[in-house]
């Protein structure tokens, strides 16, 4: 987690945290939804958030950024462009038009799946997976599995926001998870 790594407080972090809006009881009672759309209304804060990711990954030889639909697209595409990397969208079923591979994951009730275009990532490519928030990690695990199935090297999962259990660094399916700020409760 960025806060702990830096020891002191990165001045950008306070603004990032403050720009995230908590919407109670969305999508259902008891969930305190961390809404990043308010951060996107603050150009300097949005820019800083992207820069934190860019600074971390610029020297790691990343060749692809895989963004989880749909909020992962928002942070993932600027990151990919800054790193000179490909952007690979990981999507809900039936959205990608070409030949895909699919990975299911468990929801609280039922299952969902994530798809990736065949041929978008090659064996041995170094990849970052990105999403706005990590909660259970189910979606990120599915993403990691998709990439590993094509022989990619998932270097890290990057999320702007993480639930408390991800504080101080955590691992999902053997891969490190990097979180910029804690979930706001």
């Amino acid at each position, binding site marked *: 987690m960025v806060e702990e790594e830096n020891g002191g407080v990165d001045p950008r972090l306070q603004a990032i945290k403050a720009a995230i*809006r908590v*919407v109670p009881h*969305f*999508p259902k009672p008891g969930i305190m*939804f961390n*809404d990043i*759309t308010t951060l*996107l*209304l*603050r*150009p300097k804060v*949005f*820019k800083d958030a*992207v820069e934190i990711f860019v600074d971390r990954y610029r020297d790691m030889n990343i060749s692809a950024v895989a963004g989880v*639909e*749909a*909020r992962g*697209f*928002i*942070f993932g*595409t*600027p990151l*990919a*462009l800054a790193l*000179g*990397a*490909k*952007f*690979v*969208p990981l*999507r809900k079923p*039936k*959205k*990608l*038009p*070409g030949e895909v591979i699919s990975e299911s994951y468990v929801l609280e009730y039922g299952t969902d799946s994530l798809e990736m*275009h065949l041929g*978008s990532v090659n064996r041995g490519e170094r990849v970052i997976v990105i999403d706005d928030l990590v909660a259970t990690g189910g979606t990120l695990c599915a993403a990691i599995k998709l990439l590993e199935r094509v022989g990619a090297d998932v270097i890290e999962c990057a999320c702007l926001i993480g639930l408390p259990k991800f504080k101080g660094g955590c691992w999902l399916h053997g891969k490190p998870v990097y979180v910029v700020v804690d979930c706001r409760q």
Partner: protein
Amino acid sequence: MASEGGEDPRLPRIASTIRVIPDFPKPGIMFQDITTLLLDHEAFRHTIDMFVERYRDKRITVVAGIEARGFIFGPPIALAIGCKFVPMRKPKKLPGEVISEEYSLEYGTDIMEMHVGAVQPGDRALVIDDLIATGGTLAAAIRLLERVGAEVVECACVIELPELQGYQRLGGKPLFVLVKAA
């Protein structure tokens, strides 16, 4: 009529990276797939640059990107210009208070939503999506933005399907595209 990028030397590269998938999502549709453009860093870079160059001096204060492929092109443009990014979403995705606009599909209707308070009266808006077909989605976005008092400066898409004449559904708002699909 839509204006194009013209003879810009970056266009052939951009156009060449777009993949056509026949019969998706249903028979008879030639789907214009931009995911292959995103795999070519230079082509993706050129695409964003061409939009940024066009809009950086137009005093745009908000880029409205239409879910989900508008979320791919919109944020980099907003960041480069230094303005807000506002996601225009399918129903029930945005967590806060929203305003909604219904629009026609080939069969039936759908709804587009925008957060209340994201866009202010007097905001100068750019609407972005990967492609314009019938123009129905863009028209819904324009209506939402105008309902809160914003001025829609232009709609921008990577690709246009000219035979569908979507530009006619934009309420007189100009359209800018990079590539016209044959």
